[in-house]
Each structure stands twice: as C-alpha cells, then as structure tokens.
C-alpha cells in the first residue's frame, strides 16, 4: 500500500512533535520545580508576614505601655536619674531647719540595679513640727530619700539638735550604661 503524504505535511508533523517534546521537557524540568518553589516561598513569606504583624502589634502595645508608665512616673524616673547634690539638698530644705548640714556621704555596697548613698546629717529645729514638715517634703524632693534610723533629738535651750541618717537611692550608672549599649546594638 502506497501512502502518499506530501513532504510539507511530514515536515510540519516533525516540527510539531519537536515542539510537543520541548514543551513537555521544559515544563517538567524547569516550570514545575520553579512553580513548587514559588508556592513554598509564597507560603513561607505569608507566614513571616503574619509573624511580623504580630510582632508589630506586640511592639506597639509594649511601646504604649512603656510611654504610659514613663508618663505616669516621670518624677520617680527623674529622681532616680538625679545624682545627690548635698548643697542643693541643704538649700531646698533650709526652710524646715534653722541649720542643716550634710556631714558624710558614703556609697553602700553597690546593688545590682540601684546605687545607695548613706548620708549623715545634723540640723537644728525649733519644734518637732518642722521635722514632720521635712518628712512630708522629702517624698516630693528631687531625689529618692529614705529617712533612716538612728534619729537623735537633743534639746538645747530653745532649739532641738537633731541628727539623722538618710539613704539616697539612684540608678546604678553601670547598669544604665549597659542597657543603653544593648539598645544601641
């Protein structure tokens, strides 16, 4: 049996077959692996974006909490940051005493977070009321001051000699500097 196919159609068939094979090979060797990679990466990026969103929300919440806390405690934070100045302390509290002098300042063994200075003072007051007023004002002063024992009062004619110990609390500078370094990083 003689099949008479024109040569042109034969060429076309061969080229079509070649294209078909090329499409198959290209799809299976290049497109499908890339497509799989695309799908995996898309899901991965989506997951990372989701995590990022939750981190941002947490960050924003924490930031607002920090700002609120800083806003509410400005005085305390500033007081802890302020280094104790004996002259300023004497000047501020002279109204309660007829005479006030800071005798000795010693740094106690450094604690982890706060530095504590022990301050010995001697003063003269007209009445215990002045000392009460001083105790009221200490809680509003520029420093965090705890009045400590021993407190000694001795009458000398019309005035009372008094001496007492205070503990002044402030930030441990080393810790603060370590914190700022870690934040910079």
């Amino acid at each position: 049996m003689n099949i008479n196919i024109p040569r042109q159609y034969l060429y076309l068939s061969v080229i079509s077959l070649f294209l078909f094979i090329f499409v198959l090979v290209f799809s299976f060797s290049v497109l499908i692996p890339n497509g799989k990679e695309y799908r995996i990466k898309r899901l991965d990026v989506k997951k990372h974006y989701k995590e990022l969103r939750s981190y941002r929300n947490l960050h924003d919440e924490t930031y607002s909490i920090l700002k609120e806390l800083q806003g509410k405690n400005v005085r305390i934070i500033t007081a802890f940051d302020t280094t104790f100045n004996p002259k300023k302390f004497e000047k501020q509290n002279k109204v309660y005493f007829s005479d006030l002098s800071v005798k000795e300042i010693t740094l106690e063994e450094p604690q982890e977070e706060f530095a504590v200075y022990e301050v010995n003072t001697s003063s003269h007051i007209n009445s215990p009321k002045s000392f009460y007023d001083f105790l009221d004002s200490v809680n509003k002063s520029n420093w965090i001051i705890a009045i400590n024992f021993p407190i000694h009062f001795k009458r000398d004619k019309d005035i009372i000699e008094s001496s007492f110990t205070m503990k002044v609390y402030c930030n441990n500078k080393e810790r603060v500097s370590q914190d700022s370094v870690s934040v910079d990083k």
Partner: protein
Amino acid sequence: MKHSYITPRHKSALTQDVQLLLSFFTITILMLFSTYTFLIYKNYVFTSEKETVIIEKNQLKVSLSSMKSKIEYIEKQKMLSEGIYTKNIVLKDSMVNLFDLVPTRITLSEAKLQEKGLILYGITPNKDVYNFMLQAPLRSIFHRTYSSFYPAKNGWLHFVSTNYIDEEDIASEH
C-alpha cells in the same frame, strides 16, 4: 511530456498552514518563557521580602526586649520609691504618735529613735507621773522597757527610759 501554458504560481515556503503553525509555536514558547520569567522574578522577590521581614522581625525583637527591660526597671523603681515613701510616712506618723504620748508634765531633753528601740531622756515631777503617764503607754508598744531615775537640782527626777522591740516578734509580724 506535458506542458502547461499558464504562468507558474509563485510558491512560498510560508504557506498559510506554516504561518498558522509558526504563530502557534511562537505563542506557546512565549507563554512558556513568560511563565518561567514570572516564576523566577517572584521567587527572587519572595526571597528578598523574606530577608527584609526577618531583619525587621529581629529589630522588633531587640526593641521589644529593650522595652520590656525598661518597663521592668521602671516597675522596680516605682515599687522601691513607693516603699520608701510609705516608710517615710509611717516614720512621721510614729514620731507624731511618740511625741503625743509625752504628757505636758514631763519634759523630754533627748530622744534616740533606733530601728528596734527608743531611748528617752527627760525630767518628771515624780515617779508616779512617769509610771502612769509615760511608762504605761510605752509598755504597750515595746516588748522590753527599762527605766532609771536620778534626782534633779529642783527636786524633780531625771529619767532615762530604754525601750526595745524584740527581733523575733518583728519577724513574726512580717
């Protein structure tokens, strides 16, 4: 041999069929390559996006931990300062109460306030006034109270009152 008298048709290799087939081939190959380019581009974009997101996440983590430590530190400062303020107020109140305890007939010349004790020096008209008006209330506050007297020039009595709170009792109260 046969001869034709008509002029021969101009024959081209690009017949209509071939043109159709070529355009089909071109479109197919273009689609394949455009898909491939799209995938390559998107994969690159996803990789760079992922890197950016990871960097941003790490920055947020660092910032978060720094903020958390700041919050923790402010809370500690707040707690410490509130404790100190309360102690100062309590100290003031106890001093007011102490000096209110001293009756007008007794005059104090010296007072030593210690963490677990109180020493009072003064002058009293007689022992009874001291015992009833000062020692009794002091006994109700302190666990151990000791008094000693010695005569003054005006016939009154100087007294020294030493009062202590026992350490074990303070611990059990806390």
